[in-house]
Structures are given as structure tokens and as C-alpha cells.
């Protein structure tokens, strides 16, 4: 436990510094993105029929929500706010703290991406083991080809393919939003059913697009382990195939856990194309929206959230590895 605690303290300190560095970099990048959001809003109002004077005044009111002062002052404000978990106020959602907007969007990203990732991991890992063991047979070939194929198809192509099949040719699944508004929100079958129904295509897209990576990685890892001496020794000792299978799986899966932890860290980044195609209101869509409308506070907050989740996932992955792999733990203790 001491080793883990020491590692954790080191990681947290490094993570904190990394977050500050990333926050600083993202602050300056976000605030230097070209484009005049106020002019764009003015134009939109005038094009919609508002008189130029009224549009000018309306945009002047909006100016109040943009940060004022020099870049240095804004940076100090931003960083001091950050220490209080205050990410500022959204320009496009006046009066709404950025943290609230991000939290609202995060739930629509986390659930489908988490489900899709875990589902693809589970299926990919199991089939990866089979693909490795049966690598000389037709089943192994078929599994490997399916992995390569799905891994090679871009997410947005896969998403559009599913829309065409299940929403246009055989219209049995919705592809427009997270839930049907006609259902009363709450713990009732209609609402939950609608939620699940709307999640099928996004989750399936996440799962199918990630599945290829898992099966190929697991197959490769298993093939490596199969050549290890301890497997040969186990076979020579006449151990049962199920026990040997467990030996193989437990050793081959170790590197995949690290990738899984990092994938979970990236899940807050969502999948922009998937969310856009399925009109799923998660963080990816929010990020696009904030960039289009130059909502600097929201943009910065979204970038920061994604970065923090990756840093945290890195830490968790490292600690998890320490826990599940005795070789790492004993190596640290020895040193």
C-alpha cells in the first residue's frame, strides 16, 4: 500500500502541474482564435430583419458577457477562478456557469461512450482470444478480418451506414436525439424505453468502431503470450485447457487494461461525428457549438475537462497496473 500511496502522491502532484500547464496553453489558444463573434451576431440579427441600430444595441448587451481587460488580467482571473472550480460564464447561455453547461452535456456523452467502450472491450477481448487460438482456422481469419474491416471504417461512415440501414431502409430505430419529448421524464417504462431506443445506434456505432481495435490488440497480445515459456511449461505439465486459457487471457489482457483506462479518459471528448450524426447532445456537440459561436469560456472549459479526464485516466491506469501486475509492484518494492 505504501508503494501505491507514494505513486499516487507523485502522480497527483504531476497531474496538478500538468493541468495548470494545459489550462494556460488552452487559455491562450482559445482566446486567440480568430473571428469576431459580435460581428457575426450583429450580422445575423440584421439579416433576420432587425434594424442596424437595434442590432448594434443588442450586440452591445452581449459584449458584457465577454471577458474584459488585458489578456494578462483575464488570465489571472481565469486561473484564480479555476482554483475555485469556477470556469466562468457562458456567453451563449448568459448567466449560466460553464461548469453547469458541461455537466449537463457530459451525461449524454459518458453513458453511450462508456457503454460502447465496455461492450466493445468485452466482445473484442473474448473474440480476440479466440482469433489468436484459432488463428490458423477459418474462424480466426474471419474474426481478424472483421476486426481489420471495422477498425478501418471511419466512425462517421459507420454511423451514417447505420442510419441508412436502421433509420431509412428499415426504419426501426430513431437517430434524432436522446429521447422522445412526449414521454414524461422519470422512472417509467416509456421514458426509459425511449432513452434506450435512442441510445442503440450511437452505442452500436461506438462499440463497432472500437471493437476492431480491441480484437486486433488482444489477438496480437495472446499470440505473444502463447510463445512464452510458462505456457509451454503448463502444457508439458498436462494442465487442463481451461486453466491454460485463463493463464493466457490474464497475461495477454494486461496491456489492454492500460489502453482501456486511457480510452475511458478520452470518453469525455465524446465522438464529435457520432454526436452530430445522431443529434446526441453531448460534449462533442457542445464543443463544436462553442467554437462556432466563439463562446470562449465554454470552449476553454470543454478543453480543460477533456484534458483533466485524460490526465486522471493516466493516473488511474498507472495505479491500476501496479495493482493488477505483481511484477510491477514487486519491482517497485525491490527498488
Amino acid at each position, binding site marked *: 500500500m505504501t508503494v501505491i500511496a507514494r505513486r499516487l502522491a507523485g502522480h497527483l502532484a504531476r497531474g496538478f502541474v500538468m493541468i495548470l500547464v494545459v489550462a494556460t496553453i488552452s487559455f491562450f489558444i482559445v482566446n486567440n482564435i*480568430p*473571428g*469576431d*463573434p459580435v460581428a*457575426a*451576431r450583429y450580422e445575423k440579427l*440584421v*439579416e433576420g*430583419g*432587425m*434594424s*442596424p*441600430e*437595434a*442590432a*448594434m*444595441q*443588442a*450586440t*452591445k*448587451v*452581449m459584449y*458584457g*458577457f465577454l471577458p474584459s481587460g488585458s489578456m494578462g488580467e483575464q488570465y489571472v482571473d481565469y486561473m484564480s477562478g479555476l482554483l475555485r472550480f469556477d470556469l466562468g460564464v457562458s456567453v451563449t*447561455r*448568459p*448567466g*449560466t456557469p460553464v461548469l*453547469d*453547461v458541461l455537466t*449537463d*452535456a457530459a451525461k*449524454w456523452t459518458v453513458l453511450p461512450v462508456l457503454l460502447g467502450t465496455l*461492450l466493445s472491450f468485452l*466482445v473484442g477481448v473474448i*473474440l480476440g482470444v*479466440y482469433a489468436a487460438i484459432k488463428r490458423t482456422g477459418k474462424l480466426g481469419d474471419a474474426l481478424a478480418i472483421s476486426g481489420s474491416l471495422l477498425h478501418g471504417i471511419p466512425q462517421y461512415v459507420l454511423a451514417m451506414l447505420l442510419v441508412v440501414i436502421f433509420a431509412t431502409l428499415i426504419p*426501426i*430505430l*430513431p437517430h*434524432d*436525439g436522446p*429521447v*422522445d*419529448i*412526449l*414521454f414524461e*421524464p422519470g422512472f417509467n*417504462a*416509456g421514458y426509459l*424505453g*425511449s432513452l*434506450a*431506443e*435512442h441510445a*442503440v445506434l450511437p452505442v452500436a456505432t461506438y462499440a463497432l468502431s472500437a471493437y476492431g481495435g480491441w480484437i486486433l490488440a488482444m489477438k496480437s497480445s495472446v499470440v505473444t503470450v502463447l510463445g512464452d515459456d510458462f505456457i509451454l511449461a503448463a502444457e508439458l505439465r498436462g494442465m487442463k485447457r481451461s486453466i491454460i486459457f485463463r493463464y493466457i487471457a490474464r497475461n495477454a489482457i494486461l496491456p489492454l487494461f492500460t489502453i482501456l483506462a486511457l480510452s475511458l479518459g478520452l470518453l469525455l471528448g465524446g465522438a464529435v461525428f457520432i454526436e*452530430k450524426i445522431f443529434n446526441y*447532445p453531448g460534449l462533442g456537440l457542445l464543443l*463544436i*457549438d462553442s467554437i462556432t459561436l466563439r463562446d470562449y469560456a465554454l470552449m476553454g472549459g470543454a478543453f480543460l475537462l477533456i484534458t483533466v479526464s485524460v490526465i486522471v485516466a493516466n493516473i488511474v491506469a498507472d495505479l491500476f497496473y501496479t495493482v493488477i501486475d505483481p511484477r510491477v509492484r514487486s519491482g517497485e518494492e525491490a527498488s
Partner: protein
Amino acid sequence: MKRLAAVVALLGLATATACSSTDNKPAGGGSASGGLFTTIDVNRPGIDASAPANPYNPKGNAFPGYTTMKIGWVVNHLTDPNKALPGMAASWEIEPDNSAITLKLQPNAKWSDGKPVTAEDVKLSIALAYTQGSTAFAVTPGAAGAAAEVTVVDDKTIKITQDPANPSPKFARGVLDTTVLPSHVWSSAVPATIWDTIKTARGDGPEAEKAREEITALGQKVIAFAPPKDVAGGPFVLERVNPGEALLVKNKHFFNAANVAPSQVKFLNYTGNEQIWNYLTQGKLDHSGFVAAPTDVMNRIKAAPGSEVIKGYSPVAVSMAFNQSKKPYDNVHVRRGLAYLIDREQVTKVASPEGGTPATTTSGIHQKAAAAWIPDTLPKLEPYKADLAKAEEEFKTAGLTKKDGKWTLADGTPWKVSMHAPAGFSDWLSAQENIKSQLIKAGIDAEVVTTADYPVYLEELAAGKYDVGFWLIALGPAPYDIFQRLYGASNGWANVGGKIKHSPAGKSGNWMGSPEEIEVDGAKINPGELTAKLNSVGPDEAKPIMSQLAMAANQDLPVIQLWDYINNQFVNNSRFTGWPHDDEVLRLGTGVLPSGVWIQQGLVKAKQ
């Protein structure tokens, strides 16, 4: 293999369970009397479930025409900017000299919580409008058409007078286009002393300046104000919102509830045009406002069962605008040469076959409005019909030379027409590609440069970085609004404290860089000053000014008018009928959802 089989079985079961829920009938769905009306807000992509029911909030869950009401619904009239349909006001009387408007509220108007709509509600709404910026309710010094006094005559009558200092013929429009909100909900958004602050702000000196700052600060408070629940004055009230949809239910207290056909309205979310196209091709929407679509998509939309596209007048035109600070666009003969060279019919056919009609000439006004305002001037305008010989003649007059089939500048350097458009503006980009082909064919090198997005485009355009860009013009119906796109801030003329000042090219947002004075019909005119004058004169005085400005635009060509937009409204006759086909009501005031107004006026009927 057993494990694999188990996993596959589980996946199958999960999918089957999920799919089976498509058979569930949503509670209160289309079976309710009158039925469910499905639409989108084309002005605002991205429904935000956390946004308040606040019409001033950019993401607010307020739906003008459906939940929120204006005093009147200003229509799309060719020449009369003050024409409107009754809204919260049943009728109004405008003084012949435009000095005042007296509003009579709907006698049976009630809010969705059952409380009556009174003149005090309108007065508070006017105070709120002052904080947001409004044509009639502005505290900006010298603002044209600003109100002077707001007087509650009785519970249902309110009189608003116009400040005689800088009167405007569209004063009534500014008043009528005001959102009416319930004072018992919104009074806490502004202090009780708001009218004193407004009065002070309309004056001069440091105190007035301070009061104006206070009002701007109040504007931010109003924008962020979140009513505890929606109290609507319109035919519907907000029931709930999720990030994908908003549900409105019928407001039983609405004064014309008996004639409101749908019992529920569902607003669908979208993030891009593609989603709207999908909704339309699937016949999901009962109504959608105009959205640009390529020909193949438009054909699919039209093929959807019950689909109909209603076409009408849209007071917008698109133009090819020149930065006259850059050579050779400072030379009017070059601009004229390009006007003769570009075949606008071909451009429109490629870029906006359904959404535009080729401009008959460059006048700065939409052809339909021009025919109504200045019919005698139109025949005098040079039509700039595609004519290669005339184009070459103009180029030669400008000193350009053609060597080996390529046009070069007067100093012998190569000439390349560099056109810019923002990414995502598919019709503009298609138009520029077509123009590029036409130019190259005529021996002029050309390129199309795509800018990342609209905010970047506007920033770089204003900074004078582009030689040629596209620019929306002719934004009617008010004459001043039409011509300020050509002779306003983008061309150097700005209203500073009620006086028109001209900035030289490249300064203060002047990216067009036209000369301050132009000779028209032998007389020198200042187009910016004339345009500003349009803000304060009546129709009879406006006509000769508009003629002069149209002629100035036609001969000086700060832009080449390419096509006039058509207002396409997409409707579906499967569930509802009775759609209006009248130009005037197909497009209403800023941000107004026309189908909400059609429904509340009793035009839309449930299909029997």
C-alpha cells in the same frame, strides 16, 4: 464457444428489447385532439434544455409566435414597414405624422396562468426592450425613431409618442415589434426605478452616460433572467425541454384558443442543415422555415408524402462586393467589366436554383421591392446583361491589357480575382466556383478561398483582407435598412451622435471604400448621407432618394447584385392544411416563427 454464444445472445436480446420500444405509443402523442404539430426553429440550431424561458436569451426556450407574443406581428410588406398583424394588441392607431401610436390590447388576452394581460404588462415589456436595444426603445443619442413617452391610458390602452428630435417613418414598426411579457413574472428583472433611469439616459451629459451604462448592465441581467416557469401569452406554453426536443402544450387561456388547431407542438433539435433535410425528406416536419438545399436534396424533399414548398418574397439579395482599396477594383470600369462578364443566370442556376432569382440588374434593392418603390427608375438602370465584348471594352478603358489570352493589370502584373466565402455557405461557394469558371474562360485568372467560418470571414472582411467577397444586401422592407448595406458602416458612413460621418477606406470598418461623393445624373451626391436621410423621411420623400441611390449603385457598382433570394417555406399537408401563400405573412419580424403566427391567427387547420 459457449461464452461467445452467451455474449452474442445477450447482445441480440439487448437490441431486441430496445427495438421493441418503438412500438410504445408516447403518452399524449398524436392522438390528442387537434394533434401534434412538429417543427423546428430555423433561426436557432441546438435546443438547450438548461436555458430559461426567456426570449432575450440567445439560447432561451421561448418561441416567438408560439409561446411569446409581440404587440403586433410586423409583416413582409414591400413598401410599408409599419404593416402588421394583430398580436397582443388587437388594433392600433398611428398618428398621420407618425408622432404617436395608441395600442388597444386584445380584450380577452390572458397569460397561461390565467391572469389578464394589461397595459402595465406592455409598459414593463417596453422597459425590458430598452435594456436590450430596440428600434423604438433606444437610449442611444440621436437614435432615429426613438420613443419619447409611454403612457398607460387605461387597463387595455397604451400610448407611445415618438421623440420629435429624429423621427422615423418606421417608428410604429419598432413599437409593434416588441415582445410582451408578464409583469408579475418579469418585474424583478429590472429595478422599480427603471423609468427614471431611462429618462435620464435619454438626456445629455455624464449623468446620462452613466444611466446608459446602467441600462446596458441591466440588459445583461435581463438576458440571464430565468423565470421559475414559463408564463406564456401565446397559443402554447412550454411543457418541458430535453436536449433533443421541446414540447409545448396548448394554452387554454389564449384569447383565440378556439381557433388554434394543434394541441401540442414539438420542436426538434438540429445542428446542421443535413438534419433538417432528413426531417423534411422523412415527412417529419409540418413546417420548416427556409433552409438552403442542393437540387437533389430539394427533389427528395418535394417527393416526401404531403410535402409542399411555398415560395414567396424575401427582402434579401446576395452580391459580389469589392474592396475598392485594392487594385484594380478601385477602377469603376473594372467593376463594370466584371458585371458584363458574369452571367448571373448561370450563377443562380448553379448556386441557388430554388432559393433565388437572378438579379435583373444592380440597384441595391430586391427586384420586387424596386418595382414597387421606384418603377420609373428601373428602365433607366443599366442591366449589365452578360456581354463579353462590352466587358472587354470596359477592361480596356480601365487600362487592362490582354496578352496571350490573359488579362493583366495596367502595370503589366498578372490579375487574379481572389474571391472569399465562409465554409458551410454552400450556395455562395458554388456561385464563386461558377464565377471562377466564367472568369477563367474569359482569360482572367481567378480563385475561390474558403474561410474557416462566418465569424472569421466577417473579421477578415472588415479588416480589408479580401479583394472580393460576398455580401448580403437589400435587407428590407424599410428603405434605410435596404441601402445601409451599401452605404452604411461597411462603406465608411456611421451615425455618430445623430450625425453622419464618413471614415476613409480601411478605417473604422470601412472595407468597401467607395468614394464619399458620386456623380449621378450630373449632380454630386453623398450616398451615405442620403441613406441616413431615409431613416427620417416618409415614403413620398423616400422615393426620389431611393432612385438616386439605386442609380448610384447601378453606375458605381460597389457590388454586383447576383441574385435575389426567394423565401421558401416547407410545409407538409399530411396532418395540417390551410397554409398561407401570401408573400406578406410568409416572413415576419426578427426571430419570429411564422407558423406559430399562422396557427394563432387560425389559418392552420387540422386535416380532417
